[in-house]
């Protein structure tokens, strides 16, 4: 903990509060502007977009993506990346589905346990044995794919019908436009935002991403930070997977595959640098919401999948370019 104190003290003198907030929040403000513009545009295109049921639909899509992107943000803040989030989510959903005959709570715990195990293995290999994160998580993704493919015919066979509790969590509604999965997301997301800003681990995540060598020399056990980060990431992925499974009702091996690249994209759009140390979860939330709203808009406009993907690519590129310019001239 001492290292954290030292770091904070070092930053103290240049903290003229207002300037700091303005500087830090400029990208956030720009993102909120983009989001508002998109929502207004959507409202103009289709009056129904601003209706409660459409809002609910958008929120239902956003929550799992934002959770996956949250895990991705943690990894990217340390300068890593997790390409196994989609398969981890699928595996967790699968195990939850198979175990649902044992009782809903037990099933969810089993699903989360999958996340913890995957994350621990990833984290230990990356932190302790210095396997490149890209390769480790890529390999893990392949391992999980193989295990699930085989498992679906043998030890994980049987019905994969989700229990009522999971169905309710993933697709149910509390009141009006507010789905249950939003509550799950808000709780975890809030913890993530506060955790990154206020806790020792949160600051260490930034520190490791910013300068790994300095961290090590300052006495930080970098490997423990990385184990924690990859475990949290996989755990968030497991939660997201269970929510996705609850929404679709049944599980297949491609359940969360489509979420992998958007999870990276949401973090990038939100201003988290893939090189580590820069960014945060608030930006990622905005990134995920923007992606979800954009998706709805392109659907409303009846854009076909081809044009959607092209636009998607250009938006990521344009925003990343803007951030790169910002950091080049801002400092």
């Amino acid at each position, binding site marked *: 903990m001492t290292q954290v104190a030292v770091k904070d003290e070092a930053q103290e003198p240049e903290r003229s509060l207002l300037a700091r907030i303005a500087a830090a929040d400029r990208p956030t403000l720009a993102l909120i502007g983009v989001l508002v513009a998109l929502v207004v545009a959507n409202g103009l295109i289709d009056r129904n977009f601003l209706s409660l049921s459409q809002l609910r639909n958008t929120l239902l899509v956003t929550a799992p993506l934002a959770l996956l992107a949250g895990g991705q943000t943690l990894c990217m803040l340390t300068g890593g990346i997790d390409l196994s989030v989609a398969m981890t989510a699928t595996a967790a959903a699968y195990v939850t589905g198979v175990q649902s005959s044992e009782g809903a709570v037990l099933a969810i715990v089993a699903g989360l346990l999958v996340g913890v195990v995957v994350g621990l293995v990833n984290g230990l290999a990356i932190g302790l044995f210095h396997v490149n994160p890209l390769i480790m998580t890529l390999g893990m993704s392949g391992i999980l794919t193989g295990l699930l493919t085989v498992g679906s015919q043998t030890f994980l066979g049987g019905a994969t019908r989700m229990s009522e509790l999971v169905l309710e969590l993933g697709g149910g509604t509390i009141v009006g436009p507010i789905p249950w999965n939003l509550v799950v997301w808000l709780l975890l997301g809030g913890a993530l935002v506060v955790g990154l800003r206020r806790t020792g681990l949160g600051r260490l995540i930034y520190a490791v991403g910013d300068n790994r060598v300095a961290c090590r020399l300052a006495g930080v056990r970098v490997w423990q930070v990385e184990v924690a980060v990859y475990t949290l990431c996989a755990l968030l992925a497991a939660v997201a997977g269970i929510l996705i499974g609850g929404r679709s009702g049944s599980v297949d091996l491609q359940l969360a595959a489509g979420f992998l690249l958007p999870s990276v994209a949401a973090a990038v759009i939100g201003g988290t640098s893939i090189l580590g140390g820069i960014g945060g979860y608030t930006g990622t939330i905005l990134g995920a919401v923007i992606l979800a709203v954009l998706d709805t808009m392109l659907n409303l406009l009846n854009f076909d999948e081809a044009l959607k993907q092209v636009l998607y*690519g250009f938006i990521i590129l344009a925003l990343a370019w803007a951030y790169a310019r910002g950091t080049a001239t801002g400092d």
Partner: protein
Amino acid sequence: MTAQAAIRPLGPTRRLARRHAWTAAVVAFFAVLLAWSASQTRNFGAFELQTLLASTLPLAYLAMAQSVVVIGGGIDLSVGSMMVLVNCLSARLMEGTDLGGSLLVAAGCLALAAALGALTGLVITVSKVPDIIVTLATSFVWGGVALFILPTPGGGTSEGFSALVLGSGSAWWPALLCLLAPLLLVWAPLRRSRAGIAIYALGSSRDAAYLSGVDPLRTKVVAYAVAGLLAGLAGLATTAFTVGGSPQSTIAMNATLNSVAAIVLGGVALSGGVGGLIGPVFAVWCLYLIPNIMLGLGVDPSYGEVVKGVVVVLVVLAGGLLRARRNRAP
């Protein structure tokens, strides 16, 4: 590498051994796997060899493309999408043509792929956005354009083109020749030229390369253009192999991920500046043989994915430990 050499000069034989040790190990690994696989098949011969070469040709090209970029200190997440794009474009244009027409289309597609690759390199250098983000974005763009060209699987090619690229029946040498062509015609001259050495220099230390007069912009553009060309070849090989095009984005993503796994297994360091193109090709063959051998052993070939994943992780782990030990040694 250079700093080490200054501390502890090595004899030419030892340097040669060290430089090619990894490739040699991969080749030996492949030989073992091939012998194992051959012992499982009753009459292992030209037909099996043709199957191996033809079905791995797209991924082999793709691994070569990824290698060039990674050696130059980048990473290209869009090689798979580029392959799908060229696959769809060529399948649509080649449908109903004769051999001559197909070749003309192929040449056009390759030129386009190289140009798009060069553009990617240009954007990366000018924008200063990390390679991985730019190519993530372009992977969406190429995938979208592929869908636009060919909304559903379809298209075709001339029979002559398929036979020319892959061979037919048990003729295995056309596929091998097609694989060797870019190695001999593009990579071998490039590697010895200023531009090729610049790629290695940029990959091993960007700052040192810049201070020594390497132009980062031109080098990046060359590396990505060559990668685009090779990914284009992968697309053409897919067209020849499947006699058509399919625009699914899962194909692109799996191909990209497999290309990264193959280059790592093939001795290209993700940190850049180390490795060649031969090792990754052998690594692709190894990754193809593993599920086959498991099938022969009566194990569910789906475990092949598990074994592949474990092998790749362990190899990287071992490589990292070896490098750490080598660096620590006085």
